[in-house]
């Protein structure tokens, strides 16, 4: 579904993405891990068109999307949630989702009809139920908990019915219990939604438990790719930074 071929991106002297080739098969669930500054967010910025690679190809269902504008790439079916929840502070949860759905059905420029049209309201209602956000639906986005804000950010991406969903640290800034809850929701969305899901995460227990395939990044390069067992037993990964014993958590 999504394939990166020899993608390179540098900022001045820093090579944030160093000849990265990755394959994300249709409907797979993959994790990207690596220490802070490894180039994980940069990878997402390249895929979503926020950054343009210096060289290499990014193929969505065999179509090269390099050079397309972010809004165009979204329309092609790549949705994204952000490391720091990116939401609309003065709108309610429900209004934000309805506005996102309106954009998806090409109504952002409809001036002469009432908001929300019924179909838009219904679709937003489905998303609210899917995310379990009914209790906070009428609260302003600035008034909901950090965890709910992260969840809403994912919901906004889902409003566009993406074929590929990129989640940048969905559990960032959460306590242990909340993390497992969030990752459970993510897993459920993937199982129900039939989409290619890629998430960035640095809690190894979570990654090993949830992801089908794991890609380890370091200094902008792919250090290893494989299943949880492959990664756990990969000597390079262990030597690089997992420590000697069974890994606990990669330092953030």
């Amino acid at each position: 579904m999504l394939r990166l071929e020899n993608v390179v991106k540098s900022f001045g002297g820093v090579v944030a993405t160093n000849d990265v080739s990755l394959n994300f098969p249709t409907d797979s669930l993959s994790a990207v891990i690596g220490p802070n500054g490894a180039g994980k967010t940069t990878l997402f910025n390249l895929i979503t068109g926020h950054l343009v690679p210096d060289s290499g190809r990014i193929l969505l269902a065999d179509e090269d999307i390099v050079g397309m504008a972010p809004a165009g790439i979204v329309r092609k079916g790549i949705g994204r949630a952000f490391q720091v929840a990116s939401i609309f502070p003065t709108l309610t949860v429900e209004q934000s989702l309805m506005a996102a759905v309106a954009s998806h059905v090409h109504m952002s420029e409809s001036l002469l009809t009432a908001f929300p049209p019924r179909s838009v309201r219904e679709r937003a209602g489905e998303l609210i139920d899917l995310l379990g956000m009914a209790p906070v639906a009428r609260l302003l986005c600035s008034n909901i908990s950090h965890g709910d804000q992260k969840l809403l950010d994912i919901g906004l991406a889902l409003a566009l019915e993406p074929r590929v969903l990129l989640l940048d640290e969905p559990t960032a800034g959460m306590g242990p219990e909340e993390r497992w809850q969030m990752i459970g929701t993510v897993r459920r969305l993937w199982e129900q939604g039939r989409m290619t899901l890629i998430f960035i995460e640095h809690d190894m227990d979570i990654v090993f438990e949830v992801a089908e395939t794991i890609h380890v990044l370091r200094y902008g390069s792919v250090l290893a790719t494989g299943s949880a067992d492959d990664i756990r037993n990969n000597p390079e990964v262990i030597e690089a930074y997992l420590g000697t014993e069974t890994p606990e958590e990669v330092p953030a």
Partner: protein
Amino acid sequence: MSLFREFRRDVLLALGALAVLLAIGFGVDSAWPRDFLTSIFAIGLLAMSLNLLIGYTGLVSFGHAAFFALGGYIFGLLLQWGDFTATLGQGSVPVALLAAVAGTALYALVIGAICVRLTEIYFAFLTLAFQMFLYSVILSWVALTGGDQGLMGGIPRPVFLGVDLADPYHRYAFCAVIFVICMLIMRIVTESPFGYTLRMIRDNAQRAAFLGVNVTRVKLICFVVSSSIAGVGGVILALFTSGAYPEWAFWAQSGEAIFMIMLGGLNVFLGPLLGAVALRILNDVVQMYTSHTEIVIGLVILFVVLGLRRGVLDFAKDWWVERQQAKLAAENRESQQ
């Protein structure tokens, strides 16, 4: 029409407001309320339309009055042009009105296409620069515009459909109808999917783009709509004064509209209109006591901005929203226990 069904409440409110305005204009045996309200129609549309940019989209324009002035000048110039009124006869006034709106929209499309790509302070400066450009064109093209004298000699207003705009009652009713229609249009636009897209852009333009919104195009549409309505405000003032004057395109005119928004509030639909009424009344009252009106008005605005930290209606809205939100949050906590 489904649009009127969807906005039934607003349409009824608009009709009610129009009835009240007409009752005041025709019922009170004095020119003062008619004159006062007509000037409110004009500058109220200027402030209300500017708030589509400032309050709804987060685009602070310092040059909005340019479009106000342009609407007035196009309208006045067309009607002063003998061939135009000779050719169109009865149709002169309606065609001049439509031409003023279309001309302003076209000018706004060109200016907006350049400005909306910029953000914040650069957008503000550029709109100001384009306004000063129009101002100097008006001042220097004396043969066409009359320069600093403005459009002199009155604006001819051929009777159409039995409406004689030389008659103060007819003129007042005509302006009231146009004003209410424009208010209704703005209400519909701000409560449409487009209106909520504007709010998304105001809150977080980057996220809106990542949700597939063409941010530049949406901003441009907003710029054109709001400028066209400002142009209608200019037409009303041209009708009212039977002329058009370069001060309408001066930066102080835009500044006054911004004051009105600050005073009345930018997050409530009618905030700028309330601000326009308040500022006009304040101006008239202060003028009775002192010639230093600017100083007194400046102090009042300072008090509102520093004291309430927002416009009057924003203050009321925030108070109400906070209460609602607290109540909802409390309900959630209870139901979770």
